[in-house]
C-alpha cells in the first residue's frame, strides 16, 4: 500500500498538468471556433502555394 503514497501525488500532479493545458488552450482561443478548423484536415497544405497560378484556356 505504501506505493500509493507515490502514485497519488503523481496523479495529482498529472491533474495539475491537465488543468494547466486546459487553461492554456482556453486562453489561446482554441475553443473560440469549433467549425472552421474542422475543414483544414480536408485540404492539403504541404507547402506554401504560389500566389498566382495560371491555367490554360482562360477566357480573356
Amino acid at each position, binding site marked *: 500500500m505504501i506505493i500509493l*503514497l507515490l502514485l497519488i*501525488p503523481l496523479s*495529482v500532479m498529472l491533474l495539475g498538468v491537465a488543468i494547466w493545458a*486546459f487553461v492554456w488552450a*482556453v486562453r489561446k482561443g482554441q475553443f473560440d471556433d469549433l467549425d472552421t478548423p474542422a475543414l483544414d484536415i*480536408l485540404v492539403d497544405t504541404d507547402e506554401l502555394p504560389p*500566389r498566382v497560378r495560371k491555367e490554360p484556356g482562360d*477566357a480573356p
Partner: protein
Amino acid sequence: MNAVGAVAVAAGPRVEAVSATCFHCAEALPPSPARLFIGGTERLFCCAGCAAAAQWIRDARLDDYYALRTAPAVRVTDDDADLAVWDSEEVLAEHARPIAGGLELTLLTDGMRCAACAWLIDRGLTREPGVLEVTANAITGRIRIAWDPACTSLSRPLHRLLALGYRPYLATGAARERARRSERNRWLLRLGIAGLGAMQAMMFAEALFFGEASAGVGAMSVPMRDFLRWITFLVATPVVFYSGWPFLSGARNELRERRAGMDTLVATSTLLAYGASVVETVRGGPHVWYDAAVMFVFLLLAARMLEQRVRNLASAQVDAIARARPTFAVRERADGSRECVRAGALAAGDIVCVAAGEAVPVDGMLIGDDACFEESLLTGEAQPLRKTAGAAVFAGTVCREQPARVLATVVGQGTRLSQLAALVERAQAHRPPLAQAADRIAGWFVLGLAIVAACVFLAWRAHEPARAFEVTLALLVISCPCALSLSVPAALAAANGALARMGVLPVRADALDRLARTTDVVFDKTGTLSSGVPQLLEVSARDGFDRAHALRIACALERDSRHPLAAAFVDADIQCMLHARTVTTVAGSGIEGDIDGVRWRLGQASFACVGHDDGALWLGDGTRAVARFVMGECTREEAPDAIAALRAQGLQVHLSSGDAAEAVARCARRLDLTQAHGRQTPEAKLDYVRSLQREGRVVAMVGDGLNDAPVLAGADVSLAIGDGAALAQRAADLVLAAPSLLRVPAAIALARRARAVIRQNLAWAIGYNLLALPLAAAGLVTPWLAAIGMTLSSLAVTLNALRLARATQKVRA
C-alpha cells in the same frame, strides 16, 4: 448538411436549370456568361464580379473552397465601395485596439453562409501583405482581423474581402463582444476545472468507499484513509470555490435581497456537503462527501453552460442582422463635393447621398430625382415604393435601383425606426413575469428543509446524541434538492439545444414554457404565410400573339434588371433564348429594350401600350398591347401543411395582416382559414391579440416585419421568421433560422414534450425527496448511501431531460 439538402430539393423540379446557374453564386446566367477554367472544367459565371472572385480563389489555390462549401456563395457585386473611411483616424481610434505588432478590429459581414466561407476568408485575407492574423466565425458572422498599420492600411485587405463578395460592416459594441467572449472563456475554464476535479475526486471517493466497505481483512488503515481525504480536499476545494463561484455569488445576491432561490439551494447543499466533509476530515469522522459536492457543481455547471451557449448563439445571429442600420453615410458638402462620415455625425439639414442597395441612415425628404425605397424593415412589405422629390424617406429603408439624395430632417433617436424600437421595448416591459414559480418553490423548499433538519437534529440529540450529527447530515444530503434544481435547467437546456438543431433559435429563456401553453397562433400574412417573392399568376396574350413568345420576350427584358419583379420571370422561365439589347429602365414605368429589331416595352399599361393602368404588367411596343401579366405573391409551399399540423395539435389559427382586405381574403381562401383580418395597423393587431388574451387564450404570434414588433412583444410568445427584418427578431422570443413554417408546429410539439419532461422531473425529484426524507429522519440511511441516492436521482433527472435531444435526432433522421 441541411443547406445541401435544401439546395438539392430546391433544384429538384428544374434540373436542367442547374447547369445554367453561376458556378460561384448559383444565380441565373445572362445570355453571354463569363467563362473560366476551375479544376480543369470550364465553369460559367453570372457576372464579372463572380468570375473575378473565382479566378482569384483559383489562382490562390483556394479552390478547395468550392468542394468544401455546403451553400452557394453570395453574388459578388462589382460596385466599388468607398472603403477609405475604414482608414480614418476616428474609426481606428474608436474600434481598433492595439495588439503586439499592430492593431486588431472586429467586423461583421453578411455573406458567410457556411464554415467554408470562414475558411476562405481566413486563408484569403492572411495572404494579404501586412495582415497578421484573421479569424472568421461563420456562425456569428464576425471576422477578427489583426494587421500591421506600418505595412498596410486596413482598406486593402477589406478590398480583398469585398472582391470575394463579403461586404464589411463595423461590428458595433466591440467591447460587449469582447466581454461576451471572455465571459464564455471563464465559464469554459470553470467547467473544465470542475470536470477534471470531479473525475479525480470521484476516483479517490471510490477508493474510500471500498476501504469502508471491506471492514475486515483488506480494510484501509486510518492514516491512508486520512491521506486520501486530504488529497480529495485539495482537489475539491478549487472546484467548489472557483467553479462553483457563480452559484455562491448568486446565493449571496439572493440572500442580500432576502429571498431564497435556486442559487441559494445549490450553494447551501454544496457548502454543506463540502463543509461537513472538511469537519469529518479534521476530526477523522466516519465519512466524507467531497464527491457529492464536486459532482453537483460539475453537473449543474454543464447544464447551465449548455443552456447559455444556445441562447448566446441565438442572440449572436440576431446581432449580426442588426447591421441594417448603416454605420457610415455620405454627406454632401455645400460645394457639392462628398465626404464619408459616421452615421452618428449627421445632423438635421445635412444632405445625405444614398447609393443604390444601401440603407438610408436618417429620416428625411427626398430631393432631386425620383427613387425607389424598399421599406420592408418598417412595413414588412417587400415591394419597393417609388417616391418623388419632396416625399418622406425613413431611416432603415433600402434605396433601390438608383442613388438618391435625402435632406435629413430627423436623425439618431428621433427617427421612426428608433421610435418603433422604443415601442417594442415598452411592449416588452409590459409582459407579466412568469418564470418565478420554480424559484418560489425552491424558496419554500429550502426553508422547510431547514426547519425539518433542525427538528430532526433536536429529536436525535434527545434520543441518541452520538448519532445526531450523522443523521442530520444524511438527511440534508439525501434530500439535497439537487434533482429539483437540476430538473428544470437540464430539461430547458436539452430542449433549447434540440430547438436550435431544428433551426429554431430561442432568444429568451422562458419562451419554451409559454410556447407549450399556446392555444392560438396568429399569422401575419406578409412574408410569413407568403414567400414575399412576386410570382407570375396569370399570362394572357392579346391580338392572337403567341403566349409563350410573349413570355420569352418579357423574360429577356427582365433578366438583366435587378427589379424585384424580374425574379418572377426568371423563375417562370423554361427556355429563354432571346437576347435583349440596349435594355433601359424607365423609372416608375417599366423597362424597354430591342429584341429582333423590335423595341419592346414592359411595364404599366400607360407605358407599354398607351392603355389604362390596372395594376397588371403589360407587354407592348409602345402603342399596341400583346400580353398582360398578373403578378401576385405566392403562399409558401409548406404553409398548408404547417397550418394542418397546427390544427392537428388542437390550435386555432388566425390571420391578421396589414395587407388589403381582398388580398388577405384570397390568401385565407387558399389556406382555408376562417379567422382572417385584413388592413390591420400594428395597433389593431395588438388589440386583436389582447382581446384573445382577455378570453383566456394563450397567443403565439408569427411575424417578420418591424410593424409586427409591438404585436410580437405583446403576444404571449412570438416567433420571427429568420429572413425577415432585423428588429422584429429582437422583439421575438424565438427566431426561425430556417425559413420554413413547418418549424412552428415542430417547435410547439417539442415545447409540449419539454413541458412534460419538466413535470416528470419535478414529480420525480419531489417524490424522491418525500420518500427519502422520512427514511433519513428515521436514521435508516447512512450518509454515504444518501450521497449515492442523491447522485442517482440527479442522474435520472438529467438522463430524462436528454431524451428530448435524442427524440429530435430521431425525427430528423
